[in-house]
């Protein structure tokens, strides 16, 4: 066979392998689960809250029959801080730092989700430059999140070095965030009506360097992991979760897209500048842990593409809405311009002017769909805020994911849905 024929055959095989029908998936799920004869003797094992592969303080009680997981009882709440109660006692501007602490791996995405909801409630129009900067920052946080996810996930499967490689590469993205807002982890960079600061000098250069560098690193990760026999065997056909399961358990994000559903709120309900850039929704079809890895690697590449387009087409103009009723003024104007000073006093001591009503806004954060519900009674503080966070529902779906699987696969499956307990417990 010629080289071309070999390539064609490989391509054909991979397509055949990539598109199972939903019946095939169900059949495959039934085949891979419950394959060990039961002895009837149940051992209860407590996993967590300090277990390293629970990614925080998640606790699960596993009922084991031999090596087979028969039942799982999840326990969350060890990191509950009452964020929603706190939100009812703070103005809209003061809530933004609280949202950092939800999903601290991708905290800009959390800021962004809350600001999108608040802007929808108030009817604030974000200027184009603000929207583009938000898109850049959001995609950077997606890259940081997925790289971190990969490191931790692969460490759960037993490689220590790879974890360090991923963390080193994540540092470059965190350095960019440090340039943007001075913080590496809890950014609080988004504001109602835009972002806190303009892009600093030299950001364009450094950002382009990083987004040229990251796809090369992703190729390197794939070289190490994708065809690694151990990784393949431990993740292929493990933890199959079909699209119907995902709908029923509200599992969203990469897990849903790995089940063959091209659902991405960046495309379906565009916000920020996502309707002005071109990108593909990463979809895979086997619904297992391995495909979730493939989806995330594709997403990192797409994120780099989005950031490059945003940097190329970055519009001029204000980055924060000149909206005296809702947004903070530019800090440099506060001590020079009387109107800006009045606006600053009003926004800081009173808060934004908000109409009465309720909104729900969901955006696509790295871990899935993050919905924010706000009910306002017209004051500067919300009457009720609910963060409908992806990790909360992913943590709930863990029993449905791992029951019938082997004990050794639990860590792989648990990591593959990407849970952060700050996000889960709120």
């Amino acid at each position, binding site marked *: 066979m010629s080289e071309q024929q070999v390539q064609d055959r490989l391509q054909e095989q991979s397509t055949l392998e990539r598109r199972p029908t939903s019946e095939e998936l169900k059949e495959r799920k039934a085949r891979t689960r419950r394959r060990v004869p039961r002895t009837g003797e149940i051992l209860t094992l407590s996993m967590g809250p300090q277990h390293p592969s629970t990614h925080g303080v998640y606790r699960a009680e596993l009922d084991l029959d031999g090596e087979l997981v028969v039942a799982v009882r999840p326990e969350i*709440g060890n990191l*509950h801080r009452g964020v929603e109660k706190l939100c009812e006692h703070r103005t809209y501007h003061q809530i933004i730092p609280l949202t950092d602490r939800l999903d601290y791996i991708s905290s800009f995405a959390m800021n962004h989700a809350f600001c999108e909801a608040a802007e929808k409630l108030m*009817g604030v129009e974000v200027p184009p430059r603000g929207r583009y900067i938000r898109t850049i920052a959001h995609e950077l946080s997606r890259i940081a999140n997925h790289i971190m996810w990969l490191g931790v996930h692969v460490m759960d499967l037993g490689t220590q070095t790879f974890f360090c490689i991923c963390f080193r590469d994540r540092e470059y993205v965190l350095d960019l965030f440090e340039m943007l807002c001075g913080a590496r982890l809890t950014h609080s960079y988004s504001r109602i009506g835009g972002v806190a600061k303009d892009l600093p000098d030299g950001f364009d250069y450094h950002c382009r360097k990083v987004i040229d560098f990251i796809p090369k690193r992703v190729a390197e990760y794939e070289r190490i992991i994708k065809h690694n026999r151990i990784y393949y065997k431990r993740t292929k056909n493990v933890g199959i979760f079909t699209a119907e399961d995902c709908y029923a358990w509200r599992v969203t994000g990469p897990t849903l897209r790995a089940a063959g559903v091209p659902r991405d709120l960046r495309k379906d309900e565009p916000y920020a500048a996502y309707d002005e850039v071109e990108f593909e929704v990463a979809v895979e079809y086997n619904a297992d842990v391995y495909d979730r890895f493939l989806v995330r690697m594709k997403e990192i590449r797409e994120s780099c593409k989005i950031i490059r387009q945003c940097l190329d087409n970055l519009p001029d103009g204000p980055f924060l809405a000149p909206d005296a009723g809702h947004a903070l003024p530019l800090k440099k104007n506060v001590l020079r311009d009387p109107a800006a000073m009045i606006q600053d006093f009003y926004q800081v001591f009173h808060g934004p002017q908000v109409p009465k009503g309720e909104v729900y806004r969901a955006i696509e954060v790295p871990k899935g769909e993050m919905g924010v519900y706000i009910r306002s009674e017209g004051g500067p503080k919300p009457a009720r805020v*609910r963060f409908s966070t992806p990790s909360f529902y992913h943590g*709930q779906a863990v029993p449905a994911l791992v029951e019938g699987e082997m004990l050794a696969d639990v860590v792989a499956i648990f990591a593959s849905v990407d849970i952060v307990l700050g996000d889960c417990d*709120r």
Partner: protein
Amino acid sequence: MPSFSPDEQAAGGGLARDQAHWLASVRKELIWMDNSELPVSLMRAAVRLRRRFGGRLLEGRVFRGELSYVVAPADWLRVLAFCRDARELAFDQLDCLLGDHVPERTEAPFQVVVHLTSHTYGHRLRVKTFLAEGQPLPSVTGLWPSAGFDEREAWEMYGIVFEGHPDLRRLLLPDDFEGFPMRKDFPLQGIIGGRVRTRLTGKI
């Protein structure tokens, strides 16, 4: 069951007379809080809901392009089951279920709000119900299993009881916690032994 496609809707013509009549009547009954518009599929869903439940939909509001209905607690399960199963609605995912406390509304101070999403049409709907203190509400875990944690949270935070929930235990709070912390009359500082916590140092 008569229904109209988005194309017919966009064209304005080709609609059966009674469908146009239904659309007009639903449009008139909804309370439009601002001048936002609803997607065509959602208008069709609203017509379908109105035809099925009529006056049992107590109030329909449109705000920022979101449709929300209020139903009585007795109709809760029936309406939500219809939302999931009817072809024109097809809400196959429950995005979020939350409890809420509005002390100003003295006869029914609690409310449960459900946000639904349809993967088929991409539209969203909000359904609410108002509850008195201690009034139970049927659980929707049979329709969407993802409501399980949400209902546990609403129960421990507001004291709203969900009948038929398979596992109504505390979720986020410690087992010996007193009171329902998300109620508006619960102080932010917390309660120790039935009194508001004033010394903020030391063990909670």
